[in-house]
């Protein structure tokens, strides 16, 4: 199968010569979900921001659908990669429908007027995230959980092969987390989207991820399956935990993770 996204020895950071994370190399295939984990400030967001082009890469290579990122125009890139960030937006007097419909930007004409296809795609995306009933509400007046659904719907109707999600579940209650993650899982498995997401809640990782990238000490600490990565000794190192507490953590984590996996997969 074709790789959708590749990074080769990618250095990311805010300043030349001072990379936050060094030499990130990964391959992402269609239908696959990669979870990036690591402590606060480890540089998960920095990696994702670099891939979406919000930050300039310091060195290395990013290949999107087998083409170097530099060769792609903004419009072409917009049809390949969509994202949900942790940044909160404050649009004034915009309905949820309008916010989600912004995802159709790369497909509409000079004046951005939605055609029938576009409207269909927006309605579909809103239904998929379970937000059809709040479509007409003012975006600034809904809850954080609802907002996250709308932002995901926006990314979905942008209709890209690659989805980049920065902590899509932060600040949400457990039911909202389950809802959002089920949708993401469905996108990968049913629509063959390639997903890369950063996540703090390790208990959801086994249900979601095919591969896990653990970031620690300015580099990729390990890449592997959730089974390989989410082990006591790795957690102790990555999160700077006390000796011995990792194994206690591991035991409980996997039990909870199994329950959550059942809940996510039954949807």
């Amino acid at each position, binding site marked *: 199968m074709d790789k959708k996204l590749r990074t080769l020895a990618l250095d990311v950071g805010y300043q030349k010569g001072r990379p936050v994370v060094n030499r990130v190399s990964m391959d992402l295939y269609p239908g696959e979900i990669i979870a990036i984990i690591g402590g606060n400030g480890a540089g998960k967001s920095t990696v994702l921001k670099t891939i*979406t*082009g*919000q930050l300039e890469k310091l060195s290395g290579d990013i290949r999107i659908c087998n083409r170097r990122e530099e060769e792609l125009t*903004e*419009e072409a*890139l*917009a*049809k390949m*990669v*969509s*994202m949900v*960030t942790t*940044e909160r*937006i*404050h*649009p*004034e*007097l*915009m309905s949820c429908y*309008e*916010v989600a419909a*912004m*995802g159709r*930007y*790369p497909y*509409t004409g*000079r*004046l*951005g*007027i939605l055609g029938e296809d576009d409207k269909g795609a927006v309605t579909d995306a809103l239904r998929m995230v379970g937000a059809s009933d709040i479509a007409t509400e003012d975006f600034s007046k809904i809850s954080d959980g609802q907002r996250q659904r709308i932002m995901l719907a*926006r990314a979905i109707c*942008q209709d890209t092969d690659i989805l980049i999600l920065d902590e899509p579940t932060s600040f949400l209650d457990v039911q909202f987390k389950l809802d959002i993650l089920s949708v993401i899982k469905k996108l990968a498995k049913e629509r063959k989207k390639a997903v890369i997401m950063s996540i703090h809640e390790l208990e959801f990782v086994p249900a979601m991820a095919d591969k896990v990238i653990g970031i620690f000490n300015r580099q990729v600490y390990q890449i592997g399956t959730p089974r390989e990565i989410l082990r006591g000794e790795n957690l102790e190192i990555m999160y700077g935990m006390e000796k011995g507490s990792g194994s206690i953590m591991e035991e409980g984590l996997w039990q909870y993770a199994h329950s959550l996996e059942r809940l996510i997969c039954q949807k």
Partner: protein
Amino acid sequence: MNSEKKKTAYLFGALTVLLALCFFFSLKVGSTDVTLKELFEILLFQDDAMYGKIILSIRLPRVIAAMVLGGALSVSGYLLQIFFGNPIAGPYVLGISSGAKLFVALCMVVLVGQQIHISSWFMVAAAFAGSLLSMAVVMALAGKVKNMALLVVCGVMIGYICSAVTEFVITFASDSNIVNLHNWSNGSFSGISWEHVRISVFIVTITLAVTFFMSKPMGAYRLGEAYARNMGVNIKNLRRILILLSSILSATVTAFAGPISFVGIAVPHMMRGVMKTNTPILMIPACFLGGAVITLLCDCVARSAFAPTELSISAVTAVFLAPVVIYMLLTRRSNVHG
């Protein structure tokens, strides 16, 4: 969705009718009152006997200028609001109009002093240069001051400095050519000629057309830089274009009518309330119509409230529109956009 479209169409219809009514009303009132019948005869037959001359060569250009420039000013403010992602922005409160004023005054005083005739185009160019310069100062400050209300305070201070220097320059240049510079520097539509009107209409029409075709990326920019970029917007270009368009519009206004206060900040806010939307493709025409109506009415008040003494247009717009701005500042949630 369909009923919403209908409502929008009605609102635009109502605004257009209102503007037409204000247009005829403004032509009618003034130091010499004419009846509606006389007014139509004058307009239709270009009859310049009796009051005709007053209407055709003084009042008509003034009324058209107030409409076109008022609308332009309001759109200029709307562009700045999109740029800053915040409705508390406008060319006057950010000191941009005053920067334009200072440049125009300097050019006039220096060049008129040397007996050089200044063309209207040159005035617009000078105002544009002044706008861009104060814009650059505001942008440099915006990099440091993240709070919009604080940035506005800085803008008002820049405005005061520019106005003070302008006053200074004008006071010491007592050439007879510069006598009416004093009126202009406080904002006034009096003495606007047909040449000014032609140039204004030309510049404003082209700029508005370009603005209208920028409404798609402007719409996306409302979701913030990161998302706009993800949708394929070239952020750097968009920001440059927004600044250029906004500066051209406010510079044209300032070159011919001086700095006009609060129209740029308050009218877009009022139009958002009327239209119940912030979609640029609707807001750009709505701001233009709204700005035209309000500026026209304020100009009527300016020339007829204490006739034959004329008030400066900024004094009138300030009385009516500053409360709107205060209301806006008070009712906004303080956590929005820092």
